[in-house]
């Protein structure tokens, strides 16, 4: 592997998992390794690198290059060390006259069909073929190849039919077949690591070529998802990052954490000076284990995009153009306004939204700003609109909102339920680990209205796809529980020992009622009862059962009830508290877990302690030197309602674009427009900034120190690899603002000089973080909270010896139909989601080459619904609900059922949220994004609303030249 900067050693073959140890001798040294280890890896463990080309430790051994030959005493021939397992007492030699001669001969053959243009080759200095030529002492090539793959023309000037031009169709990497040695590492990485099977070897013998899909495919048109695993596996310049081709090799690397989804992959940011050359997934990253997706691996260009705002800006009214000002003037202006609002409208008239994209330390400071400087609890975060029902549902049943497992757990799962999630698109690196397990034979139950990529893929297929009507999750989950209870499939021993027995009996009586039977709800859910019964039986009795879920569960008016239902299901079947099982919420944004942990919710202090609790407040009151309000504050939808009513007037919104991401855009816009001071703190003039009076430019994740907490509760370090382009890391900006506010009243300012001090304060005040420090993170790499005296190295699995709340609590889950109903005017149900290449509102990914995969949001319509409406593939359609209407292009597909349409919300031009309504989860106000009654009809182009919006956005983004 190409790891010349921080040499992460390549052991050649994956680690064996056996507990039985075997001792052998390699070059005279005794080596003890687990049974099943290859001789190559055993040698590597002893510090001996056997020459190799086709082996790398991210994929299984293949034995094709014949460079890693060794001799074994008492055995014939020279076996390949990569494919030969160790055995007790073997005496291996890796280097002698015979082996040297054989290896040199192999290299001669390789090099005879490889161009000798090392000096101008993009892999110069980072090429394993080059390294191996050196390692075997290749000094001469005796063969003059008559036919080659690398010469465009033969000696008579005729075109060489074996020569294939470069494929540069992918925006991020180039495939140069002339450099290929057909080691198959790319093909195997695509199969084993990513699981896409986009690459293959076409032809045989001398004609063998690496090929993207069919002969007519390019990298871009093939099934390739641009995860970069092949590029990483390639030992030569055949598959090379375009950034390396453009810039050259990096000179240092810094371990950091991806700022996209909740998987939280560890990366090496490889740098030359302060230029980021490439992002390479970090092999020792415990969430991703050396894998990546197109976003984290390649889509970082937004950090240096020309749209990025680098100067603070202010304006008196949102109809004015922006005026660039100094940081000091911006702070003064913002503090004056906010103080003025509080003086006029009261202490409760302002609030904050913390960012689920920023670090824990930054989220902590923003909620501290509202609690200790604004002196109220008006703080919320984007988790409100995604996983707040998880917090409620798991908190009620298990005693903590924490997801129960680490990602490694999936390797021991036997039956997986994926409900309301499409990890193949939303959490791709986790999906690769999941589908790997499915290819090994684990069973799969998918509960989703759409036939998503999760239902069927290369060498896996869901055993049951329960394609339910949007909005009927509770009915389906309850029906499964009904089957388990009435057929006696529950794990009674587990329930008696671990759960509240009275609550279970109450629940069992409730769920056994005939109206929960699969047959009784079939009309409602449209899921055949037999399928529900079969799925329930499989989950109850199929071995280790794990449930993974996403926003298709939470973003409903009964989101919290479904989460409770999922927890009930896990308790019923005893699937809690060991590897391979559990309840696993897949979090959307990189730090949505962390922002919740950090007290971003209006009713909770850091560590999920309610503000009504005197002892919890006392801890912070002592450290902060203030008195904390004991009443819950406003949640995002409540803030907007209060703004429309005129009692909420000022908002500091960090790293969040509520105008685009929150439902019922018109209502959000009305709320924002009614405020007197909106401060947007972001990289870009996002949609919300159209209504802002102050703009604080933000810093990217490459420009600051901090931590992110991923969906497995893993706290990972974010490390600064370059200076903030606008002068300050985001935590410093919040501190400047807090101090400007405090300065107005003569209060003592904050004095953090490094995020590690903020983490120390978090550890001091928050029991589940008590053991966390930057020092410990340096030592351990990462840690899963709770991390405290009892668990100094963190907690990979929750509820191992008992539930956090003591006994697990079953809770009744009555199905209540949403008020959002189809009818004559709006006969279809719209559900929303996301795709692989784009992320959330797209502010980042739309500013990268990822747009080649998804340049606009499209509406998926079933052929039947399209036909009766006269809609054809690619046509403009008008999508209307009682909230609003927009236009976009139609994609005719049977991935959606008749009566259901689907779109994504990545593009502000489409604004899918103009359509979504303000219905929300009963417990948490999490919006019901996933069910909206709509009508679809042919259209000529953008709606009037879209044109008005675009005009308003353009007006609002004017910036006056700085008056110097």
């Amino acid at each position: 592997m190409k790891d010349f900067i921080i040499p992460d050693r390549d052991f050649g073959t994956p680690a064996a998992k056996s507990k039985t140890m075997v001792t052998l001798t390699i070059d005279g040294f005794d080596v003890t390794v687990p049974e099943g280890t290859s001789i190559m890896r055993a040698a590597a463990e002893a510090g001996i690198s056997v020459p190799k080309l086709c082996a790398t430790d991210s994929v299984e051994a293949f034995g094709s290059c014949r460079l890693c030959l060794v001799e074994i005493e008492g055995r014939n021939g020279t076996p390949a060390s990569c494919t030969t397992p160790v055995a007790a007492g073997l005496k291996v030699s890796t280097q002698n006259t015979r082996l040297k001669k054989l290896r040199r001969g192999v290299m001669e053959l390789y090099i005879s069909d490889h161009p000798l243009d090392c000096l101008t080759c993009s892999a110069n200095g980072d090429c394993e073929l080059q390294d191996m030529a050196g390692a075997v002492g290749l000094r001469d090539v005796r063969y003059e190849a008559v036919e080659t793959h690398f010469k465009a023309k033969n000696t008579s000037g005729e075109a060489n039919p074996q020569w294939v031009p470069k494929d540069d169709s992918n925006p991020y990497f180039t495939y140069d077949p002339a450099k290929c040695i057909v080691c198959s590492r790319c093909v195997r990485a695509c199969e084993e690591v990513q699981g896409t099977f986009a690459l293959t070897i076409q032809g045989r013998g001398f004609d063998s070529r690496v090929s993207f899909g069919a002969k007519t495919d390019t990298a871009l048109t093939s099934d390739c998802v641009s995860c970069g695993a092949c590029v990483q596996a390639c030992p030569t310049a055949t598959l090379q990052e375009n950034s390396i081709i453009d810039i050259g090799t990096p000179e240092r690397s810094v371990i950091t954490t991806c700022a996209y989804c909740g998987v939280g992959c560890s990366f090496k940011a490889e740098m030359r000076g302060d230029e980021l050359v490439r992002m390479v997934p970090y092999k020792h990253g415990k969430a991703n284990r050396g894998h990546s997706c197109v976003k984290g691996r390649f889509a970082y260009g937004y950090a240096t995009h020309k749209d990025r705002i680098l100067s603070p800006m202010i304006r008196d009214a949102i109809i004015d153009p922006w005026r660039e000002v100094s940081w000091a003037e911006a702070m003064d202006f913002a503090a004056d306004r906010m103080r003025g609002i509080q003086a006029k409208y009261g202490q409760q008239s302002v609030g904050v939204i913390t960012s689920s994209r920023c670090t824990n330390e930054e989220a902590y400071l923003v909620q501290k700003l509202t609690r200790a400087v604004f002196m109220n609890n008006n703080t919320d975060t984007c988790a409100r609109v995604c996983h707040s029902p998880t917090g409620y549902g798991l908190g009620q049943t298990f005693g903590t909102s924490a997801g129960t497992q680490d990602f490694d757990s999936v390797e021991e799962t036997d039956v997986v339920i994926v409900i309301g999630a499409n990890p193949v698109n939303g959490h791709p690196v986790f999906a690769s680990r999941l589908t790997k397990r499915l290819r090994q034979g684990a069973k799969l139950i998918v509960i989703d209205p759409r036939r998503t990529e999760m239902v069927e893929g290369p060498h896996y297929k869901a055993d049951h796809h329960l394609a339910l009507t949007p909005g009927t999750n509770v009915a389906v989950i309850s029906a499964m529980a009904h089957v388990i209870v009435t057929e006696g499939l529950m794990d009674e021993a587990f329930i008696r020992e671990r759960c509240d027995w009275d609550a279970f009996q109450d629940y069992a009586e409730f769920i056994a009622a005939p109206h929960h039977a699969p047959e009784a709800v079939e009309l409602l859910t449209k899921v055949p009862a037999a399928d529900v019964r079969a799925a329930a039986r499989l989950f109850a009795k199929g071995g280790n059962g794990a449930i993974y879920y996403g926003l298709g569960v939470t973003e409903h008016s009964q989101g919290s009830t479904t989460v409770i239902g999922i927890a009930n299901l896990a308790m019923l079947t005893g699937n809690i508290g060991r590897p391979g099982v559990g309840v696993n919420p897949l979090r959307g944004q990189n730090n949505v877990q962390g922002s919740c942990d950090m007290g971003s919710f209006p009713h909770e202090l850091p560590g999920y302690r309610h503000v009504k609790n005197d002892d919890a407040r006392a801890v912070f009151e002592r450290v902060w030197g203030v008195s904390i309000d004991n009443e819950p504050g406003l949640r995002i939808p409540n803030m907007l309602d209060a703004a429309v009513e005129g009692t909420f007037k000022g908002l500091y919104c960090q790293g969040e674009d509520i105008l685009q991401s929150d439902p019922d855009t018109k209502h959000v816009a009305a709320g924002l427009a009614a405020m007197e001071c909106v401060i947007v703190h972001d990289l870009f003039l996002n949609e919300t900034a159209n209504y802002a009076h102050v703009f604080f430019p933000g810093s990217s994740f490459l420009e600051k120190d901090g931590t992110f907490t991923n969906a497995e509760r893993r706290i990972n370090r974010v490390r600064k690899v370059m200076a903030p382009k606008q002068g300050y890391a985001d935590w410093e900006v919040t501190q400047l603002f807090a101090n400007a506010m405090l300065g107005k009243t003569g209060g003592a300012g904050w004095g953090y000089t490094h995020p590690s001090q903020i983490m120390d304060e978090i550890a001091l005040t928050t029991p589940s973080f008590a053991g966390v420090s930057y020092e410990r993170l340096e030592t351990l790499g990462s840690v899963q909270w709770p991390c405290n005296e009892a668990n100094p190295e963190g907690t990979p699995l929750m509820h191992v010896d008992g539930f956090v709340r003591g006994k697990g609590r079953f809770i009744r889950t009555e199905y209540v139909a949403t008020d959002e109903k189809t009818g004559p005017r709006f006969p279809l149900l719209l559900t929303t989601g996301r795709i692989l290449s784009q992320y959330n509102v797209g502010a980042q990914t739309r500013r990268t080459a990822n747009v080649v995969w998804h340049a606009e949001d499209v509406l998926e319509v079933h052929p039947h619904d399209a036909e009766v409406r006269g809609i054809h593939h690619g046509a403009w359609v008008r999508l209307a609900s009682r909230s609003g209407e927009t236009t976009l292009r139609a994609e005719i597909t049977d991935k959606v059922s008749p009566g259901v349409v689907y779109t994504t919300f990545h593009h502000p031009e489409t604004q899918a949220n103009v359509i979504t309504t303000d219905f929300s989860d009963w417990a948490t106000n999490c919006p019901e994004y996933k069910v909206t009654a709509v009508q679809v009809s042919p259209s000529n182009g953008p709606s009037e609303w879209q044109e008005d919006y675009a005009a308003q956005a353009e007006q609002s983004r004017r910036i006056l030249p700085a008056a110097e």
Partner: protein
Amino acid sequence: MSLETRPHDKLIVMANQIAKFMESKPHAEGIEGLSSHINDFWEPRMRRQLFEMLDAGGAGLRPLVLDAAPLIRRPKP
């Protein structure tokens, strides 16, 4: 179109949604669950508006909300 065609209509919907979940529990538990939910999660101005409606007879609110009202914390005016 938003839900608040009349003032506080949205709060009626929200309170009734909570009631519908709590109605599946035994009545006493339902009352306790509903009131503590609103006490824990509703900001004082939301509770103040709820009481405006309750004090005016609670039209449109489900019976469980009315039954739970004595346990809901009345915010300072």
